[in-house]
Protein backbone atom coordinates (compact mmCIF):
# COMPACT_ATOMS: atom_id res chain seq x y z
CA UNK A 1 0.00 0.00 0.00
CA UNK A 2 1.57 3.28 -1.07
CA UNK A 3 1.62 6.10 1.46
CA UNK A 4 -0.07 9.36 0.52
CA UNK A 5 1.67 12.63 1.23
CA UNK A 6 -0.47 12.99 4.36
CA UNK A 7 0.71 9.58 5.54
CA UNK A 8 4.28 10.46 4.61
CA UNK A 9 4.08 13.44 6.95
CA UNK A 10 2.65 11.21 9.66
CA UNK A 11 5.45 8.72 9.15
CA UNK A 12 8.04 11.47 9.42
CA UNK A 13 6.43 12.87 12.57
CA UNK A 14 6.43 9.43 14.21
CA UNK A 15 9.92 8.42 13.14
CA UNK A 16 8.72 5.49 11.01
CA UNK A 17 10.43 7.21 8.10
CA UNK A 18 13.51 9.42 8.49
CA UNK A 19 14.54 11.95 5.88
CA UNK A 20 17.41 14.09 7.07
CA UNK A 21 17.32 16.92 6.20
CA UNK A 22 13.58 16.76 5.75
CA UNK A 23 12.49 18.02 2.32
CA UNK A 24 10.52 21.21 2.82
CA UNK A 25 8.05 22.82 2.62
CA UNK A 26 5.42 20.21 3.42
CA UNK A 27 2.87 22.42 1.68
CA UNK A 28 3.55 25.03 -1.00
CA UNK A 29 3.58 28.61 0.21
CA UNK A 30 3.80 31.86 -1.65
CA UNK A 31 7.39 32.25 -0.53
CA UNK A 32 8.24 28.62 -1.26
CA UNK A 33 5.89 27.41 -4.00
CA UNK A 34 8.03 24.37 -4.93
CA UNK A 35 6.76 21.65 -2.67
CA UNK A 36 8.69 18.36 -2.79
CA UNK A 37 5.60 16.28 -1.91
CA UNK A 38 3.42 14.93 -4.66
CA UNK A 39 0.27 12.97 -3.88
CA UNK A 40 2.19 9.74 -3.23
CA UNK A 41 5.88 10.57 -3.37
CA UNK A 42 8.54 12.95 -2.05
CA UNK A 43 11.40 14.44 -4.02
CA UNK A 44 14.97 13.78 -2.93
CA UNK A 45 17.88 15.92 -3.96
CA UNK A 46 21.29 15.39 -5.51
CA UNK A 47 24.32 15.71 -3.22
CA UNK A 48 27.41 17.56 -4.35
CA UNK A 49 29.66 14.68 -5.34
CA UNK A 50 29.68 12.83 -8.66
CA UNK A 51 31.69 9.65 -9.14
CA UNK A 52 32.57 8.03 -12.43
CA UNK A 53 34.70 5.14 -13.51
CA UNK A 54 37.70 5.45 -15.75
CA UNK A 55 37.97 2.73 -18.36
CA UNK A 56 41.66 2.41 -18.97
CA UNK A 57 42.38 -0.07 -16.15
CA UNK A 58 42.95 -3.83 -16.69
CA UNK A 59 40.11 -4.70 -14.34
CA UNK A 60 37.64 -7.53 -14.35
CA UNK A 61 34.85 -7.45 -11.82
CA UNK A 62 34.04 -10.75 -10.18
CA UNK A 63 30.59 -10.36 -8.68
CA UNK A 64 31.05 -13.48 -6.58
CA UNK A 65 33.63 -11.83 -4.39
CA UNK A 66 32.57 -8.31 -3.39
CA UNK A 67 33.00 -7.03 -6.92
CA UNK A 68 32.44 -3.41 -6.02
CA UNK A 69 35.82 -3.18 -4.31
CA UNK A 70 37.54 -3.40 -7.68
CA UNK A 71 35.79 -0.17 -8.64
CA UNK A 72 37.80 1.65 -5.99
CA UNK A 73 40.86 1.34 -8.22
CA UNK A 74 39.07 2.93 -11.16
CA UNK A 75 37.02 5.71 -9.72
CA UNK A 76 37.28 9.43 -10.17
CA UNK A 77 35.16 11.96 -8.40
CA UNK A 78 34.37 15.66 -8.37
CA UNK A 79 32.44 18.09 -6.28
CA UNK A 80 29.72 19.94 -8.16
CA UNK A 81 28.60 23.49 -7.43
CA UNK A 82 26.05 25.92 -8.74
CA UNK A 83 28.81 27.49 -10.83
CA UNK A 84 30.33 24.19 -11.92
CA UNK A 85 27.71 21.52 -12.56
CA UNK A 86 28.63 18.13 -13.97
CA UNK A 87 27.82 17.77 -17.68
CA UNK A 88 26.58 14.19 -18.08
CA UNK A 89 27.37 13.35 -21.67
CA UNK A 90 25.24 11.04 -23.83
CA UNK A 91 25.77 7.37 -22.87
CA UNK A 92 27.86 8.31 -19.86
CA UNK A 93 27.34 6.53 -16.53
CA UNK A 94 27.99 8.19 -13.16
CA UNK A 95 27.10 7.67 -9.54
CA UNK A 96 25.57 10.24 -7.25
CA UNK A 97 23.89 10.22 -3.89
CA UNK A 98 20.96 11.89 -2.27
CA UNK A 99 21.54 14.77 0.11
CA UNK A 100 18.97 13.20 2.37
CA UNK A 101 19.80 10.38 4.70
CA UNK A 102 16.92 7.92 4.42
CA UNK A 103 16.07 5.54 7.23
CA UNK A 104 13.28 2.98 7.48
CA UNK A 105 13.67 1.68 11.03
CA UNK A 106 12.14 -1.67 11.90
CA UNK A 107 10.44 -1.79 15.26
CA UNK A 108 11.56 -5.01 16.97
CA UNK A 109 8.18 -5.64 18.59
CA UNK A 110 6.09 -4.64 15.59
CA UNK A 111 4.52 -1.75 17.45
CA UNK A 112 5.30 0.69 14.62
CA UNK A 113 4.48 0.25 10.93
CA UNK A 114 7.16 -1.41 8.82
CA UNK A 115 7.90 0.64 5.73
CA UNK A 116 9.88 0.07 2.57
CA UNK A 117 10.39 2.44 -0.36
CA UNK A 118 11.20 2.69 -4.03
CA UNK A 119 13.33 5.21 -5.86
CA UNK A 120 11.91 6.43 -9.12
CA UNK A 121 13.12 9.02 -11.58
CA UNK A 122 11.16 12.08 -12.58
CA UNK A 123 9.30 11.99 -15.86
CA UNK A 124 10.40 15.48 -16.89
CA UNK A 125 14.03 14.43 -16.55
CA UNK A 126 13.41 11.09 -18.22
CA UNK A 127 12.15 12.93 -21.28
CA UNK A 128 15.61 14.46 -21.57
CA UNK A 129 17.09 10.97 -21.48
CA UNK A 130 18.19 10.95 -17.85
CA UNK A 131 17.95 7.66 -16.00
CA UNK A 132 18.65 7.91 -12.27
CA UNK A 133 18.57 4.24 -11.39
CA UNK A 134 18.40 1.12 -13.48
CA UNK A 135 18.33 -1.67 -10.98
CA UNK A 136 17.50 -2.30 -7.35
CA UNK A 137 15.13 0.61 -6.84
CA UNK A 138 13.79 -0.87 -3.65
CA UNK A 139 14.89 0.56 -0.33
CA UNK A 140 14.19 -2.25 2.11
CA UNK A 141 12.91 -1.94 5.65
CA UNK A 142 15.88 -1.40 7.95
CA UNK A 143 17.85 0.73 5.50
CA UNK A 144 19.76 3.68 6.91
CA UNK A 145 21.96 5.78 4.66
CA UNK A 146 22.11 8.01 1.63
CA UNK A 147 20.61 6.54 -1.53
CA UNK A 148 23.12 5.92 -4.30
CA UNK A 149 21.89 6.80 -7.76
CA UNK A 150 23.15 5.14 -10.92
CA UNK A 151 22.72 7.87 -13.51
CA UNK A 152 22.96 7.49 -17.23
CA UNK A 153 22.14 9.84 -20.07
CA UNK A 154 20.32 8.14 -22.93
CA UNK A 155 19.50 11.40 -24.65
CA UNK A 156 21.42 13.12 -27.43
CA UNK A 157 22.55 16.13 -25.40
CA UNK A 158 24.60 16.60 -22.25
CA UNK A 159 22.52 17.00 -19.11
CA UNK A 160 23.86 19.32 -16.42
CA UNK A 161 23.81 17.90 -12.90
CA UNK A 162 23.61 20.56 -10.20
CA UNK A 163 23.77 20.08 -6.43
CA UNK A 164 20.41 20.14 -4.67
CA UNK A 165 18.60 19.21 -7.89
CA UNK A 166 15.33 17.36 -7.15
CA UNK A 167 16.76 14.33 -8.89
CA UNK A 168 14.43 11.50 -7.90
CA UNK A 169 11.32 10.66 -5.96
CA UNK A 170 10.78 8.29 -3.10
CA UNK A 171 7.62 6.21 -2.97
CA UNK A 172 7.01 4.65 0.42
CA UNK A 173 4.99 1.50 1.00
CA UNK A 174 3.79 -0.39 4.00
CA UNK A 175 5.33 -3.81 4.58
CA UNK A 176 3.05 -6.76 5.31
CA UNK A 177 4.24 -8.39 8.52
CA UNK A 178 7.32 -7.81 10.66
CA UNK A 179 10.57 -8.94 9.05
CA UNK A 180 13.16 -10.78 11.09
CA UNK A 181 16.39 -8.85 11.31
CA UNK A 182 19.83 -10.32 11.03
CA UNK A 183 21.14 -7.61 13.36
CA UNK A 184 18.62 -8.39 16.08
CA UNK A 185 19.74 -9.87 19.38
CA UNK A 186 16.85 -12.27 18.90
CA UNK A 187 17.49 -13.40 15.33
CA UNK A 188 16.09 -16.86 14.90
CA UNK A 189 13.26 -16.30 17.33
CA UNK A 190 9.90 -14.95 16.22
CA UNK A 191 9.94 -12.39 19.05
CA UNK A 192 11.82 -11.55 22.23
CA UNK A 193 11.02 -14.34 24.64
CA UNK A 194 10.04 -16.65 21.76
CA UNK A 195 6.41 -15.61 21.34
CA UNK A 196 4.67 -14.71 18.06
CA UNK A 197 5.09 -11.13 16.91
CA UNK A 198 2.07 -8.92 16.34
CA UNK A 199 1.33 -7.97 12.76
CA UNK A 200 2.08 -4.46 11.52
Amino acid at each position, binding site marked *: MILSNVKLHEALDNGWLVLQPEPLPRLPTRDHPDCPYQTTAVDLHLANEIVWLIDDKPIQIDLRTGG*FTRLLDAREHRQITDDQPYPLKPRQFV*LGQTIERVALPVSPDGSAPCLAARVEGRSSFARCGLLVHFTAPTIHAGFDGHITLEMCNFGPYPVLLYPRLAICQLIVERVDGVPFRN*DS*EFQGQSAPGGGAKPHC
Partner: protein
Amino acid sequence: MTAWLKCAVREGIFSRESTVSISRGPSGEASFIVPRSEVKGIGSTGRVRVRLLDRRDGKWAVVPSEYRDVVPVQEEDVTVD
Protein backbone atom coordinates in the same frame (compact mmCIF):
# COMPACT_ATOMS: atom_id res chain seq x y z
CA MET B 1 27.37 -2.71 23.33
CA THR B 2 29.50 -0.79 20.84
CA ALA B 3 33.06 -1.76 20.11
CA TRP B 4 35.81 -1.48 17.52
CA LEU B 5 36.38 -4.37 15.14
CA LYS B 6 39.67 -5.02 13.40
CA CYS B 7 39.41 -4.62 9.63
CA ALA B 8 41.18 -3.34 6.55
CA VAL B 9 40.12 0.19 5.68
CA ARG B 10 40.33 1.95 2.37
CA GLU B 11 38.43 4.71 0.62
CA GLY B 12 34.78 4.27 -0.30
CA ILE B 13 32.99 5.07 -3.51
CA PHE B 14 32.05 8.52 -2.21
CA SER B 15 34.15 10.84 -0.08
CA ARG B 16 32.00 10.43 3.01
CA GLU B 17 32.36 6.65 2.88
CA SER B 18 35.00 4.08 3.68
CA THR B 19 35.25 0.49 2.55
CA VAL B 20 35.99 -2.01 5.29
CA SER B 21 37.04 -5.59 4.70
CA ILE B 22 36.39 -7.94 7.61
CA SER B 23 37.61 -11.49 8.09
CA ARG B 24 34.84 -13.99 8.76
CA GLY B 25 37.19 -16.88 9.46
CA PRO B 26 36.59 -19.95 7.25
CA SER B 27 33.90 -18.05 5.31
CA GLY B 28 36.51 -15.66 3.99
CA GLU B 29 36.50 -11.92 3.86
CA ALA B 30 33.54 -9.62 3.32
CA SER B 31 33.58 -5.96 2.31
CA PHE B 32 31.12 -3.29 3.26
CA ILE B 33 30.65 0.41 2.66
CA VAL B 34 30.27 2.39 5.88
CA PRO B 35 30.24 6.07 6.85
CA ARG B 36 33.74 7.44 7.17
CA SER B 37 32.87 8.68 10.65
CA GLU B 38 32.56 5.08 11.82
CA VAL B 39 36.14 4.02 11.08
CA LYS B 40 39.55 4.83 12.39
CA GLY B 41 42.91 4.12 10.88
CA ILE B 42 43.65 3.15 7.31
CA GLY B 43 44.98 0.04 5.63
CA SER B 44 45.32 -3.30 7.37
CA THR B 45 45.34 -1.80 10.88
CA GLY B 46 41.98 -0.08 10.67
CA ARG B 47 38.97 -0.49 12.93
CA VAL B 48 35.26 -0.02 12.40
CA ARG B 49 32.71 0.83 15.07
CA VAL B 50 30.27 -2.05 15.51
CA ARG B 51 27.48 -3.15 17.80
CA LEU B 52 28.18 -6.50 19.40
CA LEU B 53 25.62 -9.26 19.68
CA ASP B 54 25.98 -12.27 21.96
CA ARG B 55 24.22 -15.21 20.38
CA ARG B 56 24.12 -18.88 21.24
CA ASP B 57 26.73 -19.64 18.59
CA GLY B 58 29.11 -16.89 19.64
CA LYS B 59 29.80 -13.21 19.17
CA TRP B 60 28.55 -11.31 16.15
CA ALA B 61 29.08 -7.72 15.10
CA VAL B 62 26.62 -5.39 13.39
CA VAL B 63 28.49 -3.37 10.78
CA PRO B 64 27.29 0.24 10.22
CA SER B 65 26.49 -0.45 6.55
CA GLU B 66 23.22 0.59 4.92
CA TYR B 67 21.51 -2.65 5.87
CA ARG B 68 23.36 -3.25 9.12
CA ASP B 69 25.10 -6.41 7.93
CA VAL B 70 26.24 -8.88 10.55
CA VAL B 71 29.51 -10.82 10.72
CA PRO B 72 30.75 -13.48 13.16
CA VAL B 73 33.76 -12.20 15.10
CA GLN B 74 36.56 -13.47 17.28
CA GLU B 75 37.15 -11.93 20.71
CA GLU B 76 40.72 -11.03 19.85
CA ASP B 77 39.59 -8.84 16.94
CA VAL B 78 37.32 -6.70 19.07
CA THR B 79 38.23 -3.76 21.30
CA VAL B 80 35.65 -2.33 23.67
CA ASP B 81 35.90 1.40 24.46
